């Protein structure tokens, strides 16, 4: 691993400062450098760059970005190589505690102490955090042995310890599915994955490769309603839910286990966004951004899971590279692309990112659907564009590539993104 040397002295001013050296931060740094930015600082709180990729030792990464199927650490390695080649300052073991609206950044690290610096532009690439037990209010006791799937993944994959011997997994998010397989391989008995919704929350390929291939049961429309045990989890009670997601307690059953892993979703880490009072999209939990991922505050960009929770690291890299390049442009005082088209979620769409588009550049609109459609589906961007796809499901992000030509004549308009069955009539 080409671990970079820590810069010994921090400059008092950088062109572009990037917070977080996961897939988003690494790609943003490369984007900014290739756009001509000189003084770039990439900061990460962990001892090594790579972010959560480092604990994702399974394969399935990189097919789009690097045209090869690699593991998370390998993906991080490939992305970091590009950063190292460009001689970009990477400061690890460093935490950004505050950013002021004047773009003064305060950071702390045992190597450089507590310091402040100014930056021309800022890319927030701090990723997401896992939703916890409190977020879904599971009643019952609070013994040891209840943890998020991501924390368990860190313990197993980075440190070589197991979270327990008999595990129940609540939530079928990708991390939970991946961990069901990982724990099984490590000799842990996985009693099942329980999902409140009538469909899996993770990617279809993960349901097949992580659950079906290992005979791990997936219980849809079922949830955990009680946790038992004084000091350590001793059992959990699960129950099916009705159409309104109300648990049917008369049909509940108990599972003897010592571990409950939670894979109940990710939330963009909006700490810095809140400090900077950026406009947030309540649907994504991340900032409202332009087609270059610039937030409501000029010079501040957001990328990766900090902007919206992606299904693939590859998409994160692509989006963050746009953000980094634009952050470089802004720091160098170049022209900003006009943001003259607004996009908004329409029928069967949960959210759309970015929130505005430009008639001056090419861009990608990413969105997620509310309900699955298992058949021919029409994706449309207002009257500007329509495409047919085979199916759409909420766990898999859908995208529409939008060229300036496509937006010709729509300047000033608001375009609605719809994902509807192909045979449905226009309304």
């Amino acid at each position, binding site marked *: 691993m080409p671990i970079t040397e820590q810069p010994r002295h921090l400059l008092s001013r950088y062109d572009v400062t990037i917070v977080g050296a996961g897939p988003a931060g690494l790609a943003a740094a490369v984007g900014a450098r290739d756009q001509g930015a000189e003084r770039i600082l990439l900061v990460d*709180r962990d001892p090594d760059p790579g972010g959560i990729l480092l604990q994702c030792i399974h394969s399935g990464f990189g097919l789009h970005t690097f045209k090869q199927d690699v593991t998370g650490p390998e993906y991080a390695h490939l992305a970091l190589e590009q950063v190292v080649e460009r001689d970009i300052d990477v400061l690890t*073991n460093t*935490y950004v*505690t505050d950013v002021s609206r004047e773009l003064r950044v*305060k950071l*702390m*690290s*045992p*190597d*450089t*102490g*507590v*310091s*402040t610096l100014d930056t021309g532009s800022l890319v927030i690439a701090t990723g997401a*955090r*896992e939703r*916890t*037990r*409190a*977020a879904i*209010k599971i*009643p*019952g*006791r*609070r*013994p*040891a*042995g209840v*943890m*998020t799937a*991501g*924390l368990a993944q*860190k*313990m197993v994959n980075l*440190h*070589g*310890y*197991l*979270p*327990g*011997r008999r595990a129940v997994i609540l939530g079928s998010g990708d991390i939970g599915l991946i961990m069901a397989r990982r724990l099984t391989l*490590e*000799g842990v008995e996985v009693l099942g994955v329980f999902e409140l919704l009538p469909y899996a929350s993770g990617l279809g390929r993960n349901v097949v490769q992580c659950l079906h291939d290992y005979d791990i049961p997936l219980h849809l429309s079922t949830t955990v309603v*009680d946790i038992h045990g*004084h*000091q*350590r989890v001793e059992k959990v009670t699960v129950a099916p839910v009705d159409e309104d997601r109300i648990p049917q307690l008369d049909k509940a059953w108990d599972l003897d286990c*010592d571990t409950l892993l939670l894979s109940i979703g990710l939330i963009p880490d909006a700490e810095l966004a*809140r400090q900077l009072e950026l406009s947030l999209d309540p649907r994504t939990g991340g900032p409202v951004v332009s087609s270059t991922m610039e937030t409501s505050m000029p010079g501040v960009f957001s990328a990766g899971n900090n902007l919206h929770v992606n299904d693939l690291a590859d998409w994160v890299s692509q989006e963050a590279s746009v953000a980094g390049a634009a952050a470089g442009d802004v720091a160098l005082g170049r022209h900003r692309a006009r943001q003259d088209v607004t996009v908004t979620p329409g029928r069967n769409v949960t959210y759309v990112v970015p929130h505005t588009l430009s008639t001056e550049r090419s861009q990608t609109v990413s969105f997620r659907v509310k309900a699955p459609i298992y058949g021919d589906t029409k994706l449309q961007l207002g009257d500007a564009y329509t495409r047919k796809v085979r199916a759409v499901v909420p766990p898999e992000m859908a995208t529409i590539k939008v060229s300036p030509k496509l937006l010709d004549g729509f300047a000033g308009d608001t375009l609605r993104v719809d994902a509807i069955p192909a045979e449905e009539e226009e309304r």
Partner: protein
Amino acid sequence: MSQDRVRDVLIIGGGAVGATLARALSRFHLDVALLEWQAEVAFGVSKANSGIVHSAMHASPDTLKGKLEYPGNLGWRRLQDELGFGLNNVGEVLVALDDEQLVKIEQIRQQGIRKGIPGTQAWTAERTLDAQPNLTRDVKGAVWAPTACVFNPYEAVMLVADAARRNGVTIAEEQRVVAIDPRDLDDPDAPLTVRTETDVWRARFVINAAGLFADDIAELAGVRDFQILPRKGEEYLLDKRLSGIVTSIIFPCPSPVSKGTLVNPTVDGTIMVGPTAQTIDDKFDTSTTEEGAAQVFTNARKLVPTISERDIIAEFAGLRPVSDTEDFIVGPTERRGFLNAAGIQSPGLTGAPALAELLVDLLADEGLELEEKTDWDPTAPHPVKFAQLSTEDQQALARRDPRFAQLVCRCEIITEAEIRDAMDRGARTLDGLKFRTRAGMGRCQGGFCTWGCMALLAEHQGIPMPEVTKRGSGSWIVCDRDDHPVTTARIGG
């Protein structure tokens, strides 16, 4: 470890009462030990409650709890000054929502005045909304009591126990009392013998400050004449961004059985709502329930309509050690040398420092000689709260010790140096670190810092990771790939 050493005083229970008493006794030339059955002090009743030093106007001056309330309030402020735990003098707003309640809250205010509580005011609706604009428009008036404070009782009790230890008191954890030997009929002055699962302790005086289990301990001493009836209270902590929605402790007009559901700022800047009040028979049942949450939020919204369950970041339940007399049970018993400090229900936490002084007097009455030390140190180095310092102070600390710039908990900005200090002061478990430093209490609820905290605990105690626990014996967090998890005796139930 069978001991021939005869202690002057043995305190059973490391909660607010036991710790403040230990610290009060540390002023004198005495051999004092405190036994806590859990992994750390303050892990019982003192850990899970509303965290309020009460204004002292609520409890009747005809009861012992009412008498100790205001001196206890002043006692906590003095301890805060000496030991440096967080304590915010936010005051109390006691709200009336109809004319009948207006009469009732004024009666409470008059009771406070009779008890010598300074500074109370009767507020009009307008004045109330001016001070607390997010209160319901239905407010008819309020009583303002500036004496009420918020604090983290576990942090305070842990630092008080640490101060006692610094002044020579033995603090022994995971010492569950299983027997107290019968009195020696041949020698009525013989010391009492207290047996735990692992050790034997002998002492001239034994103080029963065992909280929820005080009736069980009295039973072991052969003098049980009361019963502890646990009364559960569920509490809900809300996201920090609601900070400021109320700036004082908001009380509803109380019912005969409870002070009701409060909405209060915590000393850490979050908002807490609760508690419920439900008498149960299981002393280990600290489960939260859907009905409890519904009740708390329904009641809280009557005071502050915009409060929502969506903002919950953490929840817990605590048990109040209510005695069947509904008042404190304090003093000597038929068993010579065995004194009770039992049934310490609300406002017991508030009264604890005053109760400790009362117990010192009672021990003197029973024949304990009190000779003051000349080298007693009432103060202790205050724990650093890095996140609350100015940038300049942070920089100076980090230059002195780089571990002040090594982040461990990112939500609350807790540094390695703070974690190490907490371990030096007695933190042995993940919960112990959390309650002392707030590491793991923020939005991500330990997702980021759990591993870092575990690594520091393992290093500090020289133990492998599978022996690091959440809250003591049986609460292991990880196990080895090859071995089966460490199985140890379960605490309690």
